[in-house]
């Protein structure tokens, strides 16, 4: 038996994705709007579904509707539709009750670009 502990410290540079990654860190949903069809992808697509490569960064409201959700030992996750986005998003659900149908993006509590959706502040609705 060979027992070996390997510790790796990665430094990853997001490059083109920097606005997206920085947005997540601050609790903002930065999406990519296509110059040609105005399709808005979140997470952003470098090449739009219509094949256009030119686009601009836009900030979404951060509110999203939950389409499907799963929970269990692995945690709570959802497939959601952000307001203003034409693609859907898979993300982590935090403090969202089973009966809740929508939520708002939240800044992660770790230093990873973790896409999180949490419950809406009381009184706020989509």
């Amino acid at each position, binding site marked *: 038996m060979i027992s070996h502990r390997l510790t790796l410290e990665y430094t990853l540079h997001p490059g083109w994705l920097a606005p997206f990654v920085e947005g997540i860190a601050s609790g903002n949903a930065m999406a990519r709007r296509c110059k040609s069809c105005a399709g808005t992808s979140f997470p952003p697509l470098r090449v739009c579904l219509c094949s256009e490569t030119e686009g601009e960064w836009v900030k979404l409201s951060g509110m999203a509707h939950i389409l499907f*959700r*799963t929970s269990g030992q692995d945690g709570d*996750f959802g497939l959601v539709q952000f307001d203003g986005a034409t*693609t859907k998003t898979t993300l*982590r659900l935090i403090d969202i009750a089973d009966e809740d149908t929508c939520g708002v993006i939240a800044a992660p509590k770790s230093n*990873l670009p973790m896409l999180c959706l949490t419950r809406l502040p009381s009184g706020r609705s989509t």
Partner: protein
Amino acid sequence: MQISDVMVTGAALTPFNRRRDGTGFRDWVVSAFGTALELSGLDRSDIQALYVASESDFFHLQLNPASVLATELGLTGVAATRCEGGGASGQIAVHTAARAIQAGAAKHVAVVGVDPSASSLSGDAIRELYGFSFDAWTDGMTGLTSTALYALSYQVFAAEHGTTEADLTTVTCQNRSNACHNPGAHLHRRDGPQEITDSPPIAIPYQRLHCSPLSDGAAALILSRRDAMPANRATAPTLAGMGAASDHMHLGARENAGSFAAKTQAMQRACAEVGIGPGEIGIAEIYDAYAGAQLQAIAALGLSAEVSRDLQAGAFAPTGRCAINLSGGLMGQGAPVGATGVGQTATCALILEGRYHPELQPQTLPRYALADTHGGVCTLAAVTILERGSSAL
């Protein structure tokens, strides 16, 4: 040269399980290769190229494994190539090897698939690594696990196709039952509905028993050009068609998050090479990483237009019109990732020659068999259709 000029002259698998018997991945590859070479009737010196399927260096802690394994197999000097495509790695290696023969680059090649997915790292470490099989910078960093992504995709599929918990149960019970007759399978257990319900929820609707286990093991193939085939291998099946395709890496960017569109494309390409439709497939080894993934695959491959109805009618049972996962599939036989696709192809080849485990071997040899894999949540799909040899037993 046509694809049907590539013959499977050798095929073998080691047992898939948690190999905590002191052996290592090099041993498993040597074992599978030796058995496959013996079946082929060829000599080691006849092998002109080696293709190695292995998903991740993290598992075996060996970068550049193809050259290492070439040495271990006594093949030093041959061209050695490592092929990787997540869960599709094995089929991609098969395709790459067969295309080399088609291109005239070799007469005989070896394909080996291997991964120690179970015993070299903790389950939590493997789970985190698998999270980076999707888009590492979005899904992976978010902590989305493989099971959670598959669960979300399956829910979309179930909402559209009307599949139920009973269908997940049927797939689970059927695959595990088949595995009980496969002495090389990881799990020899007959799970019933109650055991499934009582198993822990991993990512609803998936309970633990709806999931495939992490396994260790290897599989090997010897592929030969028809005009160089050894005289004693007249029953060898042919690789009749191959197809591969990719889909958007983000589940949410797909037109239908529950549809395995890449699998449909891959299957269409493979069928076009053979000149048949999906309805002519007699047996299939399907990539059942999860019970629902098998249902999604059946639909995407065109094996059924009414998946739930046909499943419950026994169409995919061992005696059905298209027996699925006689080996037990990933859910029963196990999932040492790099070995999976190579092992599926080996299983199909052995069945088409009447050489499979006696209790699972169909009495009437089907003409066509399908080996189906994918990586990610079907982000990358690769399928292979094999045809029974004209002189099969």
